[in-house]
């Protein structure tokens, strides 16, 4: 008798996973609206600084690469948990947390650098739409990092169960999505300026 027996199931997908898929569908619209706003206001700032003055493509490429690699480690973490190799799972999860934090560190650095150059939320439309878009993405990454830290600590407190596997699966879905969103942002916010 398991705690999860909710009676008959009419689909094969686990509830938390289905919930996450549905949430991500909705989250697409959140980011879609933010990116849409950014693109609508692109080139409409009345005063500088402008994107070309600030963006440092090599630097952002590195942070993008770090985030991509964290997704790779996320896959490893899930793989090891399924194989019940707890030590390797912890190591890989720790790696995701570190890489995610490095990405956030890059973002903090970038924000403070931009602010130093005169781009604040209040400066121009570019500042407003840029910070709210990338800030929302940063909050997503931060929530993911917190979530994984909680899962990692859990693995030290009590033995991991098949339910935790579902939770990690869900967290991984979320993480990959946040990663993909960043690829889009990197393309339509950063790279587009240099085409």
């Amino acid at each position: 008798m398991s705690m999860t027996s909710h009676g008959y199931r009419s689909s094969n997908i686990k509830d938390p996973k289905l919930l996450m898929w549905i949430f991500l569908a909705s989250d697409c619209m959140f980011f879609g609206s933010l990116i849409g706003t950014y693109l609508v206001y692109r080139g409409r700032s009345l005063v500088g600084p402008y994107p070309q003055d600030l963006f440092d493509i090599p630097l952002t490429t590195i942070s993008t690469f770090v985030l991509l690699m964290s997704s790779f480690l996320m896959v490893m973490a899930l793989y090891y948990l399924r194989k019940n190799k707890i030590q390797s799972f912890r190591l890989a999860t720790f790696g995701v947390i570190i890489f995610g934090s490095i990405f956030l560190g890059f973002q903090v650095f970038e924000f403070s650098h931009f602010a130093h150059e005169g781009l604040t939320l209040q400066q121009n439309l570019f500042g407003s739409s840029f910070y709210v878009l990338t800030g929302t993405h940063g909050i997503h990454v931060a929530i993911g990092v917190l979530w994984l830290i909680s899962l990692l600590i859990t693995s030290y407190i009590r033995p991991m169960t098949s339910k935790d596997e579902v939770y990690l699966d869900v967290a991984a879905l979320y993480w990959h999505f946040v990663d993909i969103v960043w690829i889009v942002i990197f393309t339509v916010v950063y790279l587009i300026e240099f085409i």
Partner: protein
Amino acid sequence: MAISSQSAKNLGSKVLIRPNSQTKGIVSWLTTVDHKRLGIMYLVASFLFLFTATIESSLIRTQLIRPNNTFLSPEIFNQMFTLHGVTMVFLAIMPMGTGFANFLVPLMIGARDLAFPRLNAFGFWIYIAGATLFYSSIFLGGAPNAGWFAYAPLTSLSANPGHGIDFYMIGLFLAGMGTLATAMNVIVTIISMRAPGMTLWRMPMFIWMVLITMFLILFAFPPFTIALVQVIMDRSFGSLFYVPEQGGMPILWQHLFWIFGHPEVYIIVLPAFGAISEVIPAFSRKPLSGYPIMVFSGMSIGFMGFAVWAHHMFTTGLGPYGEMAFAVTSFVIGVPTGAKIFNWVMTMWGGKIRLTTSMLFAIGFIVTFVMGGITGIMVAISSLDAQINSSYFLVAHFHYAMGGGALLGFMAGFYYWFPKFTGKMLSEKVGRFVFALIAVGFHTVFFPQHFLGLMGMPRRIQTYADGYGFNTLNLISTLGSYIALVGACLLAYDIIVTMRSKDRKAPNDPWDARSLEWSIPSPPPVHDFDTTPVVVGQDTFWLEKYPQFKNISKQEESEIAKLAKESDKHGIHMPGASWWPLITSVALFFGGYSIIFDNILLGIIMAGLLIFSVHAWAFEGVGGYYVTVDNDGGKK
């Protein structure tokens, strides 16, 4: 019936004692995760807001009863129509649909709760938090005054320096979170928790319409939420999204708002369509006509709903091609809606019609909604819209669609399901008067407004001068609002009398109805179904009562019965009550105030409480207890 309790030691229960199945009184309501209790709480809250909004509209109409009236000052008048619109749309009618869905979705698909019971409780409490925050504006410096669609730059800090707009933005942000959470929850429930045998094509039409509604919420609320966030950022943190002096484009708000706002119309009205699709077959003693057409028309309304938003913006200068495109899509969306009307009429055609109060409301719904649809096609003509935009014609149109459509539909559903919700029967005699007063009152208010609009009376004006010929029609319209108010009071009176009386007990199946919720007692026991239902077709409960209509092979039926039996083996798991959804909502509620009043300390404390309560929630686990039903102590 035996109950075995499971206690767990964990973070959550160490801090606050977790209520169990023995908990009674107010605590059991505050911590409940039962979909029936939450459904009733949604309905009670939404009816209270409905009543509030009705009183607000009576005040508005009283101000307009004669020319040059001074009953409400212009500022109060602005606040009043804003309160009325926001309350009706976000706090009354939409949560009413959610309330029906909460109570009925599990019962109609043969499940015992929603997929995520605590998330469901959170959805309710955050709705209450958002509504409370919104209404607290009255006592904290004045209500929002920019109308329910709060167009930029009316909402900018320079145009609107008080805190009213902040309450609108943050209140709706919070309530929207709850709406989204519940939508996701209901989708998972409908996909994963249908009883054995309930294929998608055997789902009751109400379930189909709720499912489509929830998908609409999923995609429509994010653009609105982002627009709210942008205005909050503008007002509290100095960003420039809607500051025209800095290049900000107020039109962007209109786009984001109406990309949400038009689907919102269907979010409000589709559950009412669903209710009507249950009421009419039950009182016509016929199956719903054109079931697949109903499903596909619902779906196409859902899809098309996202392709018509700019018909709210014909006068903003979309250009001839933009206007033409959105006019055409707006005509086209009338087709599936018309198909639904035909199917309801076809369902009644040749049926044994019983004119209960519920059925009267259903017929009233069809008539009124058709009228709203016809004026809808009229305002979709962009050249005509240029003339009647922002006039009383428009006010009449959308009240016919939303008030006459959604509200009369929900009233039909309310009279139909009230016995199931409460175990009591509302008085049919009083019901006739309630229907007559509301229907007559409604049409008396809004029918003259068509002509007022065509004569040129603009909406949202506090008063009008004598001599335009507006006087008589306004007087009639105002008198109508009093008639409707009397109807609402009579309904409230009858609900109170019914709930207090001891001899109005409802049987399990008072209407000889068709779907699963009528197969269990009224009100249902806490675990809903003693045994997992066996679904043998559309209208499965009807087929159980009248097996001659069954159309299923013996083999398939026995296979489904076997599945049902197997899933009963483990006993019935009831999820545990929890404090954390409420506490999470409280944290977000006060977090909202910290943004409105720039209180960083309060913000930090509430962020801490939020993170803590989310963790407590997660580590507390589902918990709960098991119910086992004795074989002989079960049904009957």
